């Protein structure tokens, strides 16, 4: 007689395991998506804040175009300023278009002249320095440092990132709890097998190993499906954003890079380990109740 392959000591429980597979897969999908979102948000914030670092806008309320040009020269001569440029009427109209529509502003409406400044981000107090020099030169002015806005954006995005990380942690904990619950149910359902193995002299780790292997494979498979679904969802979002071009300008720039793929590859491995860990702890604790 040849016994090609030993029958697993734990019988396969199709219905129960299909339900658990679905739950773990869904949790992995959500966790992977939350992680990708957190990373994407962080990347977008970093890129945007780096872009506006060192940028300033100087508003000159009481001057005409020629006066603005003289003020620009004062600004350009300030140490640390790399570039200063007076915005054209068309550029100012474009800036105000969201508030006043596309037909432009009447010439009679008094508007300040605007100077866009790019300065060395490493030089401190650029805004107050420019404001002081303009005042000394006799120009009323208001200086807006974009970095002030960037700080606010960073804080908001920091909270968003933290929220995403908490979501990932909660999803992972939920997965562990669900698997622990499922292991406990499987243990109760298979109490007869556990008893026989126990009384045949099987050590606790031998019995736990049976459940660990079962749930490790389940976690790995379910995690893979969840990660693939997350990849699909992310790809769909990227495709949609790219298809709508400038209309999606408020969204962070989305892409899938190497790190994203690492996240997706690691997700099933973490799910597998979490499943294994939950199963081991549950079984060992339950066996402690037996002599």
């Amino acid at each position, binding site marked *: *007689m040849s*016994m090609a392959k*030993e*029958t697993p*000591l734990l*019988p396969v429980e199709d219905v129960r395991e299909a339900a658990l597979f679905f739950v773990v897969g869904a949790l992995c999908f959500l966790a992977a998506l939350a992680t990708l979102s957190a990373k994407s948000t962080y990347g977008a914030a970093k890129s945007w804040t780096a872009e506006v670092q060192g940028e300033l806008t100087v508003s000159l309320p009481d001057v005409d175009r020629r006066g603005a040009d003289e003020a620009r020269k004062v600004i350009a001569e300030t140490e640390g300023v790399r570039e200063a440029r007076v915005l054209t009427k068309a550029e100012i109209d474009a800036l105000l278009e969201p508030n006043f529509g596309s037909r432009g502003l009447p010439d009679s409406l008094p508007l300040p002249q605007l100077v866009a400044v790019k300065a060395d981000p490493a030089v401190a107090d650029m805004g107050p320095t420019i404001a002081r020099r303009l005042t000394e030169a006799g120009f009323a002015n208001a200086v807006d440092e974009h970095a002030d806005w960037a700080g606010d954006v960073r804080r908001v995005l920091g909270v968003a990132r933290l929220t995403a990380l908490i979501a990932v942690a909660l999803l992972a904990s939920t997965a562990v709890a669900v698997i622990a619950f499922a292991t406990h149910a499987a243990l109760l359902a298979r109490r*007869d*097998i556990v*008893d*026989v*193995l*126990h*009384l*045949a*002299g*099987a*050590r*606790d780790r*031998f019995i736990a190993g049976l459940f660990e292997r079962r749930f490790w494979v389940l976690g790995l498979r379910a995690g893979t499906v969840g990660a693939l679904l997350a990849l699909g969802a992310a790809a769909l979002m990227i495709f949609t954003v790219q298809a709508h071009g400038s209309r999606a300008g408020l969204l962070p720039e989305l892409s899938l890079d190497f790190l994203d793929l690492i996240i997706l590859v690691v997700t099933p491995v973490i799910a597998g380990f979490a499943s294994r860990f939950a199963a081991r702890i549950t079984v060992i604790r339950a*066996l*402690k109740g*037996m*002599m």
Partner: protein
Amino acid sequence: MTHPRYDLFDDVAVRLDSVSLRYDTSEDILSDIDLVLKPGSFSFLTGASGAGKTSLLKLLYLALKPSRGEVSLFGRPTSNLTRDQLSALRRRVGVVFQEFRLLEHLSAYENVALPLRVLGRREADYRADVEELLAWVGLGERLHAKPPTLSGGEQQRVAIARAVVTQPDILIADEPTGNVDPEMGTRLMRLFLELNKRRKTTVIIATHDLGLVRQVEAPVYRLANRLLVKDVEYGPDTVARRRTDPGKGI
């Protein structure tokens, strides 16, 4: 028990010192039991239904902890052993459960081989032994059959084969011939006696079957009123009967 009466190096297979057992808050099921089984001894345990035979056996195969007293196996008190040490002791004890406890998703062959898998033995190393053992209990043609397709007697024989496949130092059997015909019962008893004589396996069999008890010259312990007594009815009688009527033995 206030003073455990055991010796670490006792030459005993099983020793119970003032053992009592109760479940939850109920009354004692077993009370103040003392028992010594020497290595290589053969004993019967009898008693009415509900007398506590199965509970006593559970204490012997370390499925239950006594509420009071001490259970020692091979001279080792079990109350303070680690879980791994308890597992090591259990490996030296073969058990035939009253309700068989076969794993339904495994074949007869795999059920018998189960303790060997637990021991980490390779299938190639034990295959012939398991097949031979199953053939000996009359199941050579039913190696692949799953328990639900086996009769009660066949399941019992698989359970017995599983209990003895590792050639344990102690064999504990709870009503091992309850579901087999007299001829098979006699064969199984012969297997137990062979294990006892050739391997010096300590055997204790719980049974209602007084006919079975009378087949063997062996001490009989009887549980009654939560107490264990060495029965005077069957033990000496058995010897006397066998001396005058040798044809009655196995």
